[in-house]
């Protein structure tokens, strides 16, 4: 008991010292996660003694436009959308600012970028061949859901953690200390979690390969394997890291990281974002199904 008190005091001391250091000297290196966050031991814990990550979180990054470093861009239909449609510029969330694509995959990413607003809807799997999924209100997958410009909420118990994303109410169930394989392939993957000290480690498998990593056409296959690390670094920040591995698309595993910020307003809650009604005309009008019209059988 006494030992713990001393450690806690020590932590407070090092916070004070490190804050001063940060103020004076910290210069984050381009392409890397912010350095110099002082050592932190989460005070709010669940019954099993683990940091309680419950709450409403959101990334403050424009990675949803492009996970690599990018300039501001005009966005779609600027002649109508003006500044509303423009995309912010931003730093890379990818360590090393490079995605190690296999040569064919680099060309495929460029093709994706060119066709990212093509909407080709069919009643078969070919509908997933073209265009950014977010445009059609499809689920964003993991890790993209965590850096969409929408909040998400974590609900935590020792046996299971549930994450609900405001975007589409997309859902992840993280089964703690489980090793079950995914019974089928999904958009958001199948998540098994465990604790590594104060870091929540989530192993995500069973992706259907249909999601993109951003609006710039960065992609993966159904062989994607993601290992996430969620580490609280202050009462209001989580350091999020994800290692992506996909032998069909990349030459080696690679890593992204960025902070997550806690919503602290008293009335914070997710406000339903159900985008399906917003995309029906875009998706179904080109195939003659949005408005009533005559049709002959083949």
């Amino acid at each position, binding site marked *: 008991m006494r030992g713990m008190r001393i450690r806690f005091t020590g932590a407070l001391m090092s916070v004070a010292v490190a804050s001063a250091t940060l103020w004076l000297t910290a210069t984050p290196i381009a392409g890397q996660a912010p350095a110099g966050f002082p050592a932190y031991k989460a005070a709010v814990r669940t019954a099993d003694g683990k940091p309680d990550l419950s709450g409403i979180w959101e990334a403050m990054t424009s990675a949803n436009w492009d996970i690599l470093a990018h300039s501001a861009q005009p966005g779609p239909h600027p002649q109508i959308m003006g500044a509303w449609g423009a995309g912010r510029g931003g730093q890379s969330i990818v360590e090393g600012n490079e995605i190690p694509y296999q040569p064919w995959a680099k060309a495929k990413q460029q093709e994706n970028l060119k066709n990212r607003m093509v909407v080709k809807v069919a*009643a*078969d*799997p070919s509908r997933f061949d073209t265009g950014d999924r977010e445009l059609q209100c499809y689920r964003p997958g993991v890790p993209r859901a965590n850096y969409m410009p929408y909040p998400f909420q974590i609900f935590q118990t020792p046996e299971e953690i549930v994450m609900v994303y405001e975007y589409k109410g997309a859902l992840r169930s993280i089964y703690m200390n489980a090793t079950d*394989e995914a*019974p*089928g392939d999904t958009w958001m993957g199948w998540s098994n979690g465990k604790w590594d000290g104060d870091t929540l480690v989530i192993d995500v498998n069973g992706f259907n390969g249909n999601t993109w990593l951003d609006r710039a056409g960065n992609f993966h296959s159904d062989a994607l394997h993601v290992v996430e690390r969620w580490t609280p670094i202050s009462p209001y920040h989580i350091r999020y890291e994800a290692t992506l591995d996909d032998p069909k698309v990349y030459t080696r595993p690679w890593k992204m990281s960025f902070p997550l910020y806690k919503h602290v307003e008293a009335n914070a809650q997710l406000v339903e974002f159900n985008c399906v009604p917003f995309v029906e005309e875009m998706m179904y009008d080109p195939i003659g199904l949005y408005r009533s019209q005559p049709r002959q059988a083949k």
Partner: protein
Amino acid sequence: MKRTMTFVGVVVAVGLLLVAVPVKAHHSFAAAFDETKPINLQGTVTKVELVNPHSWVWIDVKGTDGATTNWGLEGGPPVNLFRNGVTKASLPVGSEIKIFGYQAKSGENKAVAVFFEYPDGRKVFMGGSAPGADGKPTPGVPGTAQR
């Protein structure tokens, strides 16, 4: 044995009563599929989508001229299959299956499959044994074990 016969007798009686009105609200499919186009198909599996709200099994069907057409077959949702041991590994690409169902109203190569079976009559997903089979679970075919 007697009990079995009694049971089948009851089913037949009810079935005759219900000829005009299907038991459940199956009419949701009535718009998409054509009741005048019942169809039997046999082919090799090219893709299995065990997804909600409906599973889709895509099969290559070979014609007399040797040309191959790909058909999409709509089935039910997968969650109860998963609870009974069926997974994405249960119906590998290349498996041979046969179906009876109804073709899409549009005339496209799609159908809702009433029955999903292997050529020897065993059910593809869940269910007991075909009449005449020994009733034992089939090793390597998840879903045939008694639960």
